[in-house]
């Protein structure tokens, strides 16, 4: 196996261009090392850990830039993220174990593109963008189009994620990240649901609502039909129930050792309902009537 520790993004990109599909990018390594041990070694390992400047959390006006090498623990211990992006903070707080959070990076969680990736539903509802570098230039890709299948993103084998840009949600908005798992720590979500609601000034209806679903489709998805049903409406218990059922119908879960597809559908419905109720109450101080 060839091995490189590029010192710049362009050096990493030329290695990717040279080795193509044989190359594997490694950052924290918590997933890549397991694959190398139990599946196969890549022809070439490109360790991007030593590229300077990619481990920063920076505020740029109304958005936050997170470098791909920022660890999950650094996000969890960032006061700024806890205050301004609580839905992302919550997912990092529930992420694996302390040991893994100290090593795993947000870039790795994104590029791994697991349908159940812990940070992905929150990033979807935050309408984050990924800055992707290719040898012929940079590109900003929305998270709604970044994932193309399990383990696959539009980076393909030639691109490198260089930043995650997250616009702050409106001040009046509130969010929830709900994960259904058996043990809690070290457990992969059977279902993950992120909800963000923005009420109007009168707290009478929803100006905006975003629902992200993880582990219930080939990629993390937004429940767009459920969102459309809710947007602009007063939030009643009947509407919440209807939207939760629609969100479940938008998911296309599989059955595996963690749960059956049918069960996952029920959980999507339950967590969507709970997420809407919880974030509506946090935003307005009122129960869903």
């Amino acid at each position, binding site marked *: 196996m060839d091995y490189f*520790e590029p010192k710049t993004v362009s050096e990493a990109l030329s290695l990717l261009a040279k080795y193509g599909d044989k190359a594997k990018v490694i950052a924290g390594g918590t997933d890549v*090392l397991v694959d190398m041990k139990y599946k196969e070694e890549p022809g070439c390992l490109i360790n991007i850990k030593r590229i300077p400047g990619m481990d920063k959390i920076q505020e740029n006006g109304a958005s936050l830039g997170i470098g791909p090498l920022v660890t999950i623990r650094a996000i969890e211990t960032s006061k700024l993220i806890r205050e301004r992006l609580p839905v992302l903070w919550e997912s990092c707080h529930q992420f694996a174990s*302390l*040991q*893994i959070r100290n090593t795993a990076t947000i870039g790795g969680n994104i590029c791994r593109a697991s349908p159940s990736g812990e940070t992905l539903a929150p990033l979807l509802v935050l309408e984050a963008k990924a800055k992707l570098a290719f040898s012929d230039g940079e590109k900003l890709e929305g998270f709604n189009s970044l994932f193309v299948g399990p383990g696959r993103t539009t980076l393909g084998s030639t691109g490198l994620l260089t930043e995650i840009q997250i616009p702050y949600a409106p001040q009046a908005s509130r969010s929830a990240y709900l994960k259904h798992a058996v043990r*809690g720590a*070290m457990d992969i979500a059977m279902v993950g649901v992120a909800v963000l609601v923005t009420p109007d000034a009168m707290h009478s209806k929803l100006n905006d609502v975003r629902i992200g679903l993880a582990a219930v489709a080939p990629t993390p998805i937004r429940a767009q039909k459920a969102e459309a049903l809710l947007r602009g409406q007063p939030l009643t218990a009947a509407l919440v129930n209807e939207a939760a059922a629609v969100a479940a119908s938008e998911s296309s879960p599989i059955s595996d050792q963690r749960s059956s597809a049918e069960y996952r559908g029920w959980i999507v419905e339950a967590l969507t309902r709970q997420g809407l109720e919880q974030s509506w109450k946090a935003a307005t101080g009122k129960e869903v009537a």
Partner: protein
Amino acid sequence: MNLAINLTVNGKSVSATAEPSTSLLDFLRDTLNYKGTKLCCNTGECGACTIIFDGKPINSCVALAADANGAEITTIEGLADGDKLHPVQQAFIDTGAVQCGYCTPGYIMSVKVLLDRTTKPTAEDIEEAVSGNICRCTGYTKILDAINLAADRMAGGS
């Protein structure tokens, strides 16, 4: 292809070479001969291989040895002061928190980091600190006793 890796283990500067695919755990155990750090699940799930890397607990089985170049590492061998055990080690013995013992070095490293930060940990602090360490023998009660005893002793300066 062999990489030269220079690091500090338990306060001592060490240099050795490793294949680039080598995990930090294998490097510590098989190249540097620190056998106290245990290989168990080898997938980053059980915490038996926990070491302290630049002040933070990590699972050494899912870290690259290459990333330890320039790092400061503490393993279980680095805790005792001569014949005097570290208060966390002593507390695990005194409370009977060790049965088969395989998870113990990993637990002790996680607890050391916690108690270096605070000797008055809340139940939540303790849960967070050791939620990545799995014990199949004790049922955890004795381990919690050990953590609380070690915290008391460290707070008391004994």
